[in-house]
């Protein structure tokens, strides 16, 4: 079943996430990140930051939540067993820190087919508690073999 390509531009509900030290430590452990700036606030202050930093790809935690909304959206018609992660882009304005209250309203930036496959692009501008943009996340999911022909 092809995806509903008319959903380009659709916005999903706001996702919020408070960055706590325990989750950052768990994430750092999982990726083998042991540098001090990701482990304690003293080291981060030594680099000029006000609080302990999260590793750059920590925002994946939020991105799993945002793309999850599209994945289960019945209007879109994604078959999760056919989905692979095709591309990922992050653009950072500053590193994410422990204590940040992150929020984002994800949207479908694009849906298109190419050959037998379809592509779903989800964009999420992640902001902090003061409304400053911190990270722009652009996720491309590939839906294998669902294009109904006539792709671009």
């Amino acid at each position, binding site marked *: 079943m092809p995806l509903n390509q008319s959903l380009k531009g659709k916005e999903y509900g706001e996702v919020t996430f408070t960055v706590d030290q325990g*989750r950052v430590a*768990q*994430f750092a*452990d*999982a*990726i*083998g*990140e042991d*540098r001090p*700036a*990701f482990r304690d606030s003293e080291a981060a202050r030594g*680099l*000029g*930051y006000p609080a302990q*930093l999260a*590793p*750059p*790809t920590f925002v*994946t*935690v939020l991105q*799993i*939540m945002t793309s999850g909304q599209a994945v289960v959206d019945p209007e879109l018609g994604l078959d999760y*067993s056919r989905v*692979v*992660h*095709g*591309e*990922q*882009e*992050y*653009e*950072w304005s*500053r*590193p994410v820190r422990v204590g940040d209250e992150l929020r984002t309203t994800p949207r479908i930036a694009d849906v298109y087919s190419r050959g037998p496959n379809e592509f779903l692009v989800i964009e999420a501008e992640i902001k902090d508690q003061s409304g400053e943009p911190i990270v722009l996340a*652009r996720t491309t999911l590939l839906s294998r073999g669902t294009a109904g022909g006539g792709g671009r």
Partner: protein
Amino acid sequence: MTSAVRFQDVHVGQEIPPLAKVVRREEVKAYADASGDQNPLHQDDAFAKSVGFPGIIAHGMFSMAHLAKALTDWLGDPGALKRMKVQFRAVVFMDETLVAKGRIEALDEATKRARLSVWAEVDRAGERQLVIKNSEAEVELA
């Protein structure tokens, strides 16, 4: 908040120190829990076999995290990493050695920024497989 790498010390064509790690099942499970991506493809061998793989595979984002670490290890300051755009092109199986690499492709004097091509590879039966390819990063140097 300054990169340990100085703009004046680098040149186009220069490669960053490669970063290698052996991908273990426990780490991939830990990554599933830490990231929240609980797709059974990364945890359940029987499920992975049912969709045509010999066993579980690592998350694409697990490889991207490793590539980001190669960059921030080189830069010293995590804030010097400004942008990454990666394409996932091959899967990673358990106990394979994942190597993250990068090369400076362009330098901009006005902003002290460097654009790098970045990739991650595994050696599979003597053949180099590019797990992440056609990908780039932008960093701000001191």
